[in-house]
């Protein structure tokens, strides 16, 4: 390779890094700002002075106030339970459904496609009263289980689509080989396909977790009792009070992101590769 081409490659690479860095900074800035506001003393918040970086007066009073004067720990626990439940249930259901659509195709595909679209087209406000009625009759209002069910219902269409695409990328020959060896349908799924499905399942799990963790619509519809509130309702409740404690809201915001960051660090490489493995070309 000539020097000039090598040089050009290097500069293109450098440009790549710089631009990516700038975009990443823009993406992170609001999160950074959440952190900054959370550690700023409340007396300094309502000032027109620009203060991009924390100074010596940084304090943890926002976080402390958050946990001592509010049931933030309860909210976090509720969010965790709801998210775990929804993730497990929706992943199980959509693994089955995605596999079915991938291998057995047919009319089911159109029905699922339709429900995927419908779940995206229904305005949230129209869901509130009917869902309340349904869960009222199930006796599940103000329970975390209700949230698990309803979150699952709205996650499944998308994760099914994701998993179907993923399973499409696994050659059928693998199952054929198993059938030839005499394995049953379910056994094949369980022992052969599933172990290969790591990336796909990781992607579905991540998607489900992000959605369930962030849900606010269903929580505010079905959970009126503070004791079962998830973090999202906790955050929203700070915004309507007589006194908005910005540093506490931001502290709660920061706290609410940490589990998601951890989840992301663990699974993000799967997100991309699993979509790759599938026929994302569409």
């Amino acid at each position, binding site marked *: 390779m000539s020097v000039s081409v090598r040089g050009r490659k290097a500069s293109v690479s450098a440009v790549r890094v710089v631009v*990516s860095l700038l975009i990443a900074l823009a993406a992170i800035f609001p999160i950074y700002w959440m952190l900054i506001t959370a550690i700023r003393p409340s007396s300094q918040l309502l000032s027109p002075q620009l203060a991009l970086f924390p100074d010596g007066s940084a304090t943890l009073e926002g976080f402390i106030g958050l946990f001592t004067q509010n049931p933030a720990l309860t909210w976090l626990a509720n969010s965790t339970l709801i998210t775990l439940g929804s993730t497990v249930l929706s992943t199980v259901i959509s693994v089955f459904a995605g596999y079915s659509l991938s291998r057995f195709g047919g009319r089911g595909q159109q029905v699922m496609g339709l429900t995927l679209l419908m779940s995206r087209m229904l305005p*949230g406000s129209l869901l509130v009263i009917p869902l309340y009625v*349904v869960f009222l009759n199930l006796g599940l209002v103000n329970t975390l289980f209700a949230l698990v069910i309803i979150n699952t219902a709205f996650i499944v269409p998308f994760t099914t689509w994701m998993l179907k695409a993923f399973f499409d990328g696994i050659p059928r020959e693998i199952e054929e080989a198993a059938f030839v060896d005499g394995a049953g349908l379910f056994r094949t799924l369980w022992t052969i396909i599933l172990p290969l499905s790591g990336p796909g399942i990781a992607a579905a799990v991540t998607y489900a977790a992000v959605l369930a963790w962030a849900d606010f619509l269903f929580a505010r519809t079905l959970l009126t009792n503070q004791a079962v509130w998830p973090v999202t309702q906790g955050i929203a409740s700070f915004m309507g009070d007589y006194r908005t404690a910005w540093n506490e809201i931001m502290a709660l915001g920061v706290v609410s992101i940490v589990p998601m960051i951890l989840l992301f660090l663990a699974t993000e490489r799967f997100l991309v590769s699993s979509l790759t493995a599938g026929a994302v070309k*569409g």
Partner: protein
Amino acid sequence: MTLGRRRTIFGYALLAPAIVFVGVLIAYPLVLSLQLSVTPGRFASLRSSEGGFSFEHYVTVLGSPETWASLLRTGIYVAGTVIPAFAIGLAVALLLREAFPGRRWLRTAILLPWAVPGVAASAVFLWMFDASFGVVNQILFHLGLISTPIAWYSSADTAMFGVIVPTAWKLFPFFAMILLAALQTIPQDLYEAARVDGAGRYQQFAHVTWPGVRGAAFTALIIASLGVYREFDFIFPLTRGGPNNATTTMAIAIYQEAFQFSNLGFAAALGIVSIAIAAVFVLIAGRDLRKV
């Protein structure tokens, strides 16, 4: 039972939980909304005894200029959010396609906005765009770009922008993710072949890259557009649909009619109309989607 028959049953059995689960919880609200939308009266209710059947709400919805104004605003909101988010997502995907030092961290960083709960994001943008104490105004002032603070959310000119920015911020990682995955399925030899044929960077993009991601791009665009179309919990804490209806999209209008004006029948009709419009959009724009 033949193997074929058993396989079909197995197939349906696997699919059944998903369909029943989803079907019930999505179909029931739709049915109830339809019922409310044809129940006449200012304070229409579900109490069956006071039924009645009338299309009066649909007539009002379709005949009211406010409805079409909301639809227009919704269009602006969706286009204003999805197009920039798509462009940035595509740029990001192209940037991250090649490996370079630190790529993994940057990729995680860029995906983070998607992981932030919407409520938290609304809160921080409300604070950042605060007219008197928000950092955006402070930075603009510092850079000498403005001399008086911009009241982002209380001025009709800037409110829509102030609502589009957070939504696009949260949306672009979604596109980045999907487009990056699609890019990685394009075989490298196609690029080699194009280069051998003397294709420049732009032509490579137009003839190799774009056809490779087009399908995924359209699917993502439709799904994202539908999501933004019905977005409510993000806008409402920021502007409540104001000022002076500047950010009242269909989703907000439906909420207002239902929960602020107690006009349940009208709200339901507006909702059904909104779904119908979304369906038309999907049909027109989504022929590629059927291939999925």
